[in-house]
């Protein structure tokens, strides 16, 4: 009589602890800086486009709750700042693309390879539902109109090889002048 009752109590407490853990699963915000403060950046036509590669496994676990390297996913922070005094730019995240083909090697990379969008980047919407997808979705860069002085930032996810050294990545970021409809393509290599 006493033992099953105790097991029931322990089981209930365990469920409670798991429930509390699920409530407190908020991840910390990734620290952002002004675009001009990043080492890898391009300045062109009143725009600053900067990137920061988050390749460290511990950083990935801290901010994405997952070792993304082992899954063949490289998160790259993109910060775009419009320093123009009068021009507004339209940033369409679906237009961001890789300028080079990245060969996927290894189990994780093959998985990531099946989740690619049209521009060669990882399409987060193709991931199965769960906390990892939530974390990636919340941090992903979003389409936005950049009025003079404004900034947009967030991550893009690049498929990488996990069985070989990472090759150079060429990222293309198109921005459309809202007034003239001219398109500026910013190229970043890292």
């Amino acid at each position, binding site marked *: 009589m*006493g033992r099953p*009752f*105790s097991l029931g*109590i322990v089981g*209930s*407490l365990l*469920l*409670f602890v*798991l*429930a*509390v853990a*699920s*409530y407190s699963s908020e991840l910390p915000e990734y620290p952002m800086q002004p675009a001009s403060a990043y080492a890898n950046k391009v300045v062109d036509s009143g725009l600053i486009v900067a990137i920061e590669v988050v390749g460290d496994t511990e950083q990935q676990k801290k901010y994405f709750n997952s070792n993304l390297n082992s899954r063949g996913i490289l998160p790259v922070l993109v910060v775009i700042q419009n320093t123009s005094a009068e021009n*507004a730019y*339209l*940033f*369409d995240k679906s237009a961001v693309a890789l300028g080079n083909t990245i060969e996927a090697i290894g189990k994780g990379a093959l998985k990531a390879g099946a989740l690619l969008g049209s521009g060669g980047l990882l399409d*987060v*919407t193709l991931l*199965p*539902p*769960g*906390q990892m*997808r*939530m974390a990636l*979705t*919340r941090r992903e860069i*979003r*389409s*936005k*109109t950049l*009025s003079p002085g404004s900034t947009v930032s967030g991550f893009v996810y690049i498929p990488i090889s996990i069985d070989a050294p990472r090759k150079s990545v060429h990222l293309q970021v198109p921005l*459309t002048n*809202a007034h003239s*409809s001219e398109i500026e393509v910013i190229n970043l290599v890292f």
Partner: protein
Amino acid sequence: MSISRRCLLLLMLSCLPLAGIPLMAQQQTTASAPTVQKLPLTAALVLTPEFCATVNNKGGLKFPVGKAACSQLPATLNAVFTTLTRVDDSSKAGNVQVLLEPKFTDVSGTQRAFTFSKTELVVLVEWTIRDREGNSIWIETAQGSGARSMGNNITLRKNLDRLVHETVQQMADESATKMSSAPQLLNLHVEPAKADRNP
């Protein structure tokens, strides 16, 4: 007091905060509607059948966000524009000054692990606003997110509908706020709408 009764009391006390968490989450997602500035523009809201039929395509629980959005967006955005016409295709917009085109870019939900655990829902809608010539003049992303306990199988449908409604309303409110404060729309100097030539 016996040991077993003490354990039971301890369990009840430890569960008290748990009872309050879903209530707090619900209170956070039922914030009052934002005050928006009315724009002196005539607009057509393009809600295609595909958009209205959007349901998350993966996972056990199905969130009918498209149906909710097509019900809630017209009412919310009506406060932003002088006149707002709902159409199911941009070619039917008539002679309005701007076309509002929403697109779901992600509908992401977590699956409940236990009866009492929360289910989370995140909805991302990307807006493109075009002028009469069809040029994109404004792009923005609006997010709605919510969390709610689904309860047992009897309360599941009701709670799921509430979660979808609250999450979509948050997205609609954010859309309205962003549109009404967009400089590109506030400064849109276009000629007043003429009478529709194809009534």
